[in-house]
């Protein structure tokens, strides 16, 4: 986990806000470094259900090793429930009609059925540990990344229904946390298309309580500054409705440096 990001978000593994829905979105860059941060952050004390739809388990394991967390150990202890989307999807796609694969990835067989199977999988895994709930803190759901199902034929409405149900279960009922990554593609047409990652991102932003929007620098690629992160707290309490903060970042070998705009060490 990145210490600077913790201070920006005013949270630490011992004390963080309950019931948060954190949306990480990126545009023309890769925000998965934030997923690694949150994974190692929450594995310090919570039970995590991770839906890894775009990378293999060994990928996250290797990166988390550098951040000081062992995913293998966590999985063995039962602290981490990992859905390896890429591996399971082979089972679903190659075996055809036989229902050997988990029903979680049923949307691969029939995209119009939506993500109800995925929700049932998540719901079952959290409920299943009811007896040992006191071992870990409030449950955490992480998804990397949710926008990939759009290219598999699932509609934006179905994805928003899934995220709504997850939020109702994880954030409101169990007071846990949700972290979802969506990747937006730059839309070429001027008119808003009905089914698109932009619409999904807007819909999820309406539902969430904290967004981290990552973008590349508008001026292009830079060796010392990899991009900008805009952190928005969507007000649940009275006072200023939305609080925004903008930072620039640089991804390093064992962490990420965050600094205010224009104060990169390469510039000063």
């Amino acid at each position: 986990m990145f210490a600077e990001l913790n201070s920006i978000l005013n949270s630490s593994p011992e004390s963080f806000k309950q019931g948060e829905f954190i949306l990480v979105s990126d545009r023309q860059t890769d925000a998965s470094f934030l997923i690694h941060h949150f994974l190692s952050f929450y594995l310090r004390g919570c039970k995590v259900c991770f839906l890894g739809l775009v990378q293999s388990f060994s990928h996250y394991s290797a990166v988390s090793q550098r951040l000081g967390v062992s995913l293998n150990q966590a999985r063995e202890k039962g602290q981490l429930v990992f859905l390896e989307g890429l591996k399971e999807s082979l089972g679903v796609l190659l075996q055809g009609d036989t229902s050997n694969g988990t029903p979680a990835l049923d949307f691969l067989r029939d995209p119009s059925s939506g993500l109800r199977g995925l929700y049932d999988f998540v719901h079952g895994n959290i409920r299943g540990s009811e007896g040992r709930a006191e071992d870990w803190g409030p449950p955490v759901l992480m998804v990397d990344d949710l926008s990939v199902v759009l290219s598999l034929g699932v509609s934006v409405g179905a994805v928003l229904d899934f995220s709504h149900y997850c939020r109702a279960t994880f954030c409101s009922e169990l007071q846990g946390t949700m972290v979802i990554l969506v990747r937006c593609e730059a839309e070429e047409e001027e008119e808003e298309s009905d089914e698109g990652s932009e619409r999904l991102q807007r819909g999820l932003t309406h539902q969430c309580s904290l967004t981290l929007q990552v973008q590349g620098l508008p001026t292009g690629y830079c060796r010392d500054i990899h991009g900008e992160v805009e952190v928005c707290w969507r007000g649940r309490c009275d006072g200023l409705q939305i609080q925004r903060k903008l930072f620039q970042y640089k991804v390093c070998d064992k962490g990420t440096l965050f600094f205010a705009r224009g104060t990169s060490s390469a510039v000063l």
Partner: protein
Amino acid sequence: MLLEVLQGTEAGGFILLQDTVSYSGRHLLKSYISTALKREEEVVHVLGFEACEKEFRDGLDRTNAQRLHFHNAYSDPLGWTGNSAFTVHQFTLEDVSTLIKQTPQAKAVTLVIDSLSWILRHHDPAAVCQRLQALKKGGAVRTVIVLVHTDMHQRGTVGSIRHLATSVVTVAPGTRGLGAVAKTTRRTKSGKLMQDEETFSINEDLSVTIHSKLSHPGHTHVNTDETEVDPTANLTFNLRLSDTERQAKEKLALPFVFSKEKKSALLQPGPGSGRILYEPDANDDYDQEDPDDDLDI
């Protein structure tokens, strides 16, 4: 005008609250509910799809809270977990009327939908409009107030809902950090349309404070201190006109302007203009009638 809409008690009212990702309209919605609850014997029914009951009741005055009936459509709106209080498919005139009949002793009922965007995702927009119109005209409900996220739908869908509304309030973040901006459009029963744009903020007790009115938003950028520079000054030649010169200039008839004198000169042939003599041949079909007779010049 925002305060008038918030405090309005006309029957058959339909208030549409439009918001976007940059500013959430839910606080203003709660503000409206708080105002409605302060009125005696008024009951508010909420179809809550997007916020849980705890979050919704947070900040509302506890003394009036029992007159707020929250119908939980947040935990299970599609029936996936099997313990739903209200599903999105129950958004019909019969089911909503059943909900409202739970409080028969109320003097006036306000129905709040948070949010209509959820319903529009699962139902055909035309059907939603029909049901909303039925609720509005039905008589069981005095006012319907609805929250819509305009950036989640096509313009046509939002436009159809707008047509049903008697008042439309669009909220957006304020430009100078003073609060938020609300554009209000009100349509009276006689069909008169009134519009207003105000900066507002919501206090802790959910009351609304109006900061300023921007009734002519386009004019705020005009700089009235600008002095005009006279281009005819400081030249080595004279560009100014004396009075006689100006009169002569105004009297001058421009060559290609079609004035009344020119028109009458053209229509009546003057002396000395050419005459046309026509001797019809045996094969010619000579019609004495003037073909231009019906022209009205």
